[in-house]
């Protein structure tokens, strides 16, 4: 049971730079929803995939609504997007306050301590390791506000659920939830106090080039600004550059067809875009933003660009949350990332035609839902027959980014070839894995 979350096993050859990535992630876990009603799936799925439960809920209900021919209102879509923004803020603050500081500060720690830290949840049999693990679980000083972040997010989510659930197939309940007044101030204040030091919109305006990022980092006292200073001081701005392309926003239609193909299971386990590995996540989302475009030109997709992309994505999410709750934007489709109305393709073995039949009244049809989760694009595909889910598939960001030949594999090879050795090689490898961010535990072995 405890191994159900799965794990990544990353092996790095220090002589050749060869990287092998194995995964025990349960990529076909969504089969558990076969036979259930769509309403049950919409209710249960976010509880199962709870780490990014809001984005999962959004992709799930998007798929079910398309399959059943339901069209949510603009207000419901906007509220769903606001809740995804809140979840992204929580996840990005976790990275900035907890994960990055640990990896950047561990230069002086022994390799044993680093191992205990990173593998804290992996093996719990030996008592000798238990103490090391417990101390590794202590929050780093930069993360003193992390409990407040979790509590602010939980309070925000509970307030929304008490008012009505916008992720409900019951359209009346979804509408009720969409217009409820929910206060996001606590979460937004934490973004300012712990990361940006100023209002998100002002930060995005002011920090638009490498020079202004460095100026901001020197003048700002937040833990996140400290990370930028340390990263630059350690000479790691261009660490781990690779040429892996970013998954374009226009990929959605092709992804929907890939999930309908006979090779869908293999695609879900190791996805590629146009016969190439691709990256999804904060950097892919904000690559066109002025600061990130400048950093990509100067440092490629190295560590400073990745850290800045996390900050930009955080600022955009905070600005989006504030805007969507204040004004109830009329049309949130741009923010959702993909147009939900894609051609879903034929379901192999179920329907031989070019388009499956849909009859919402009879509860029969196929739908594909998309959501930009904190770690990247989530795609759900559902086939519903006579009111019961026949087939459910999930394509998740980690399978793109931790593909055996993907962005992490290629970046780790680049780190070896840059000449890093010994414990420093291992530290930089862990830093890069943290920067791309798997949603599961991992084991790294350097040999």
């Amino acid at each position, binding site marked *: *049971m*405890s*191994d*159900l*979350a*799965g794990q990544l096993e990353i092996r790095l050859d220090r002589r050749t730079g060869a990287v092998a990535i194995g995964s025990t*992630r*349960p*990529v*076909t*876990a*969504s*089969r*558990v929803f076969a036979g259930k009603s769509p309403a049950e799936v919409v209710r*249960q799925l976010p*509880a*199962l*995939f*709870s*780490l*990014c439960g809001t984005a999962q809920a959004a992709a799930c209900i998007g798929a079910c609504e398309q399959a059943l021919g339901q069209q949510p209102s603009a207000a419901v879509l906007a509220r769903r997007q606001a809740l995804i923004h809140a979840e992204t803020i929580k996840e990005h603050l976790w990275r900035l306050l907890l994960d990055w500081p640990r990896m950047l500060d561990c230069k002086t720690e022994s390799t044993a301590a680093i191992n205990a830290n990173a593998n*804290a*949840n992996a093996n*719990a049999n030996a008592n000798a390791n*238990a103490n090391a*693990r*417990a*101390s*590794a*679980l*202590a*929050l780093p000083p930069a993360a003193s506000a*992390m*409990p407040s972040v*979790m*509590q602010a997010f*939980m309070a925000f989510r509970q307030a929304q659920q008490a008012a009505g659930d916008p992720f409900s197939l019951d359209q009346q309940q979804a509408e009720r939830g969409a217009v409820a007044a929910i206060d996001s101030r606590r979460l937004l204040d934490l973004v300012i106090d712990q990361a940006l030091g100023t209002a998100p919109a002002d930060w995005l305006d002011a920090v638009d080039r490498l020079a202004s990022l460095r100026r901001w980092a020197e003048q700002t006292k937040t833990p996140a600004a400290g990370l930028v200073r340390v990263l630059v001081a350690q000479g790691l701005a261009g660490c781990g550059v690779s040429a892996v392309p970013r998954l374009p926003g226009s990929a959605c239609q092709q992804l929907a067809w890939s999930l309908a193909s006979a090779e869908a299971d293999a695609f879900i386990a190791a996805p590629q875009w146009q016969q190439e590995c691709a990256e999804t996540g904060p950097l892919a989302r904000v690559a066109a933003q002025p600061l990130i475009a400048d950093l990509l030109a100067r440092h490629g997709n190295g560590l400073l660009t990745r850290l800045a992309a996390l900050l930009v994505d955080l600022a955009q999410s905070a600005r989006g949350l504030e805007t969507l709750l204040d004004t109830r934007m009329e049309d949130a489709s741009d923010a959702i990332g993909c147009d939900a109305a894609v051609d879903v393709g034929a379901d192999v073995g179920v329907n031989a035609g070019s388009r499956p039949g849909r009859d919402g009244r009879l509860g029969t049809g196929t739908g594909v839902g998309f959501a930009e989760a904190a770690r990247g694009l989530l795609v759900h595909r559902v086939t519903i027959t006579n009111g019961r889910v026949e087939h459910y598939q*999930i394509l*998740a960001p*980690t399978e793109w980014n931790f593909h055996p030949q993907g962005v992490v594999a290629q970046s780790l090879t680049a780190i070896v070839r840059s000449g890093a050795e010994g414990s420093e090689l291992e530290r930089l490898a862990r830093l890069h894995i943290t920067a791309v961010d798997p*949603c*599961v*535990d991992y084991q790294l072995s350097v040999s």
Partner: protein
Amino acid sequence: MCLAIPAQILEIDQAADTGTVSLGGVRRPVSLALIEDAEIGDFVLVHVGYALNKISAEEAERTLAMMREIGELAEQADVLAAAQAEIN
């Protein structure tokens, strides 16, 4: 697919803000720093060594039942794959 696993708190070390949970019958150390008012017997969602939030016993049991079912489906898939490999 980011599974966080429901687990029951067995012991609490107040000074260290850590605890021991039962995760599928295995005792594991977890940080309790991110949640408020944790008590022995509470169910929490655990991810990479951190208790993320408290959940009700009913919600924990529902989620664990789904996870058991996923494990059984995965085992069946392995058996089928092995049988297919023998045929081939």
